[in-house]
């Protein structure tokens, strides 16, 4: 594994940035990892913030679930590591 186990936070730490995009809270959303199939809350993902953007990895298999990069007035969001996100809209 290329990542240092002590260097990550949890999905909660991305909630502020994600609140710019999503109208509902993403940390409580359930998502399925496209690599291993694990279904977990986004808050349980391992979050790496040392990169130019934010990288969320699966807590089970370490596969990248989501990447978020702020570039001036634009945000790039890559969620191909998630099969789905189930958001509670109530």
């Amino acid at each position, binding site marked *: 594994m290329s990542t240092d186990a*002590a260097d990550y936070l*949890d999905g*909660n*730490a991305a909630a*502020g940035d994600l609140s710019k995009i999503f109208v509902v*809270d993403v*940390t409580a959303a359930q998502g399925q990892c496209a690599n291993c199939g694990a279904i977990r809350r986004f808050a349980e993902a391992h979050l790496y*913030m040392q990169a130019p953007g934010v990288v969320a990895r699966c807590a089970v298999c370490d596969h990248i679930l989501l990447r978020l990069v702020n570039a001036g007035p634009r945000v790039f969001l890559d969620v191909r590591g998630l099969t789905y996100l189930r958001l509670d809209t109530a």
Partner: protein
Amino acid sequence: MWRVGTVVALHDETATARTITFEVPDWPGHVAGQHVDVRLTAPDGYSTVRSYSIASAPNSDGYVELTVERLPNGEVSPYLTQELAVGDRLELRGPIGGWFVWRTEQTEPIQLIAGGSGIVPLMAMIRSHASAASTALFRLLYSVREPGAIFYRDELQTLSDRNHSVSIAYAYTRATPKDWPRPPSRIDAALIANTTWPSNLAPTCYLCGPTSFVESATDLLIAFDNGRDKIRTERFGPTGERK
């Protein structure tokens, strides 16, 4: 959406930690356990954002309290804990996070485990429990370096004396009070067995602290048959600053 908060009070919790009370007009209210992002902007336009847990109980008064620990090489925490003054204005975004929260409707036993400044969001839960007169059974296991590093010491004592549904256990990692029975050491299996809810009560567990602390405490809870789905975590990372 960023809102402007005005500092209305400052209170030192320890030699290195300070509680900041903000008045935030149109604050939408929060749930215990949530955090806010704080944005500081320098005169030259450079701006930086940090996340801090909310310490205060949910209220409808438009006040938000954060407790910030000063980190020796931090970019933001030295400013917040040493230079910020009453009347200063900062930008706040939040409240943020809907997973690491305790809601007053929850009635199951609650196990809180804090490492150092990880007490802050858990204190919001304890305060929320008190202000809502909840009868849910709370236990807090609070790991600190030394007695002088305890946040909210008197308030925790008062709350646990007055309310038998909140009990508190301390673990000291470097120095203990005089005649303390347990030598300084990290949280271990014996301490978990002696001070936390047995897993057959199916407590919901909230763990907050540095990443390595949260990892080891999570592993201990799982070793005692607590379900992973009953454990919610919030990590500060190796530096203590979340961003």
